[in-house]
């Protein structure tokens, strides 16, 4: 109180008004996408309130807490307390959004499983880069299911239990069908009458022309990632 600098018109000292001013300053700094300048805050405080006083009070209030009010460049910002960085900066990798291509491949695998890579490419009409399938395998959503009993014995892909968990599905049959995709507006009415959305085959069932995949197959195909990273 002693070192208060008094602006024109005198300083408000009414605690209720000061509290209100502090609330405003607090909310402004919190919601802002960058440090907020002192002037910007001052313009929004009740007339006659000393902005610096309010901010210093706030700074003191937050000093011992998990979040601190700090002065950055020309403005004010909230930052988590430096000593708590160990909780915030965890070992987690940053969550990445799945790319459009990966989403497409994943959805084809989900609906058309068991499906071979050639079939995926046929449905998409473009070549699928190796990386896309790798990403989906790495995410733990896609797995090798078996091998098709056709020349070349191509590997078939399917989805995993983690896939169902992540997308909140109880079973594959819960994937919306043609009518439901239309009903939800995801498919427009302008589709040919012979258009079909397949009913995916359950995870554990093997298709008639499908053999289960074996460890040997995986090794033979060179599909095992270095370091024996396969989970099951």
């Amino acid at each position, binding site marked *: 109180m002693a070192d208060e600098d008094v602006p024109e018109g005198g300083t408000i000292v009414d605690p209720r008004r000061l509290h209100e001013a502090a609330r405003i300053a607090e*909310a*402004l700094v*919190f*919601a*802002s*996408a*960058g440090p*907020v300048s002192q002037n*910007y805050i001052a*313009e929004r405080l009740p007339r006659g309130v000393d902005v610096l006083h309010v901010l210093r009070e706030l700074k003191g209030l937050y000093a011992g807490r998990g979040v601190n009010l700090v002065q950055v460049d020309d403005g004010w*910002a*909230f*930052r*988590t307390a430096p000593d708590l960085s160990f909780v*915030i*900066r965890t070992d*987690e*990798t*940053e*969550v*990445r*959004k*799945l790319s*459009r291509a*990966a*989403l*497409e491949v*994943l*959805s*084809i695998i*989900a*609906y058309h499983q068991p499906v071979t890579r050639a079939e995926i490419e046929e*449905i*998409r*009409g473009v070549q699928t880069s190796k990386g896309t399938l790798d*990403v989906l395998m*790495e*995410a*733990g*959503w896609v797995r090798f299911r078996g091998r098709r009993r056709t020349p070349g014995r191509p590997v078939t892909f399917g989805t995993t239990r*983690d896939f169902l968990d*992540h*997308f*909140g*599905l109880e079973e594959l049959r819960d*994937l*919306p069908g043609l009518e439901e*995709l239309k009903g*939800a507006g*995801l*498919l*427009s009415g*302008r*589709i*040919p009458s012979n*258009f079909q*959305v397949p009913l995916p085959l359950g995870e554990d069932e093997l298709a008639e022309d499908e053999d289960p995949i074996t460890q040997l197959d995986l090794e033979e195909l060179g599909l095992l990632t270095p370091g024996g990273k396969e989970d099951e």
Partner: protein
Amino acid sequence: MPGPGSKSQKNGRGADAPMEDLWQEGGEERGLSEESLVVDLAGFEGPLDLLLHLARTQKVDLTRISVLALAEQYLAFIDKARKIRIELAADYLVMAAWLAYLKSRLLIPKQAKDDGPTGEEMAASLAFRLKRLEAMRDAATRLVNRNRLGRDVFARGMPEHIPTERRSAFEASLYDLLNAYASLRQRHAITQVTIEKRNVWSLSDAREILSLLVGGFADDDWTALDHFMLRYLTDPAERTTAIASAFAATLELVREGRLELRQDGVFQPIYLRRGPKTEGDDEEGTKNG
């Protein structure tokens, strides 16, 4: 960050802000005014919406409306609409038929061995549906007037970290997945559409055929276009295209002097006969197939 020059002081929306302000098509006129029964269905979302609106004009609790009176109002409305030839969607007419039936059930005493629902039950179910729809609309208004994130309350503007419990390092929602699948399949479905081959007579087809036929005409013999097309066309689906192309071809042949045309009046049959330049001069155009 809140930019300078924000002039937000005044537009703080209270919880009682009218819903219309918040709708996209806010302030849209309803199709019906209470006094003058102006017939216009544009503002209504189906027969139930219209009925609800009519019921509100009774200004009583929906559990106590006179369903009979409501049915009559609705039927009167539909009659009026039909009189001035407003095209009514089928569901409005279905509702009208049902209400007419309900009316008869309410007016005629229940028969001793009648298994169907009584008029009262039917009326109750209608009143229930109206009440439920109204309740949902009220709920929507209350919902939209709540303090909404991004409008009334705000999140941390400068997040430092996105917590995740997912073991997977990738994020995607079921909606993303389905949307990707649906648009992919749709894209390909459309590119793969094969338009059914229509049997169309091209102008040159028609011209060729006509030229051949004209050769067979006796001098000064008028033949109706329709008539000689009939000889050719067994499939009725082909007729329109054939006549259109044939007529265009005749005009071309007339210009070249190979054909003459005659029509006695509007919509009368069109007659053809050989033109002055037919004999022998086949040298250009007519036959190149």
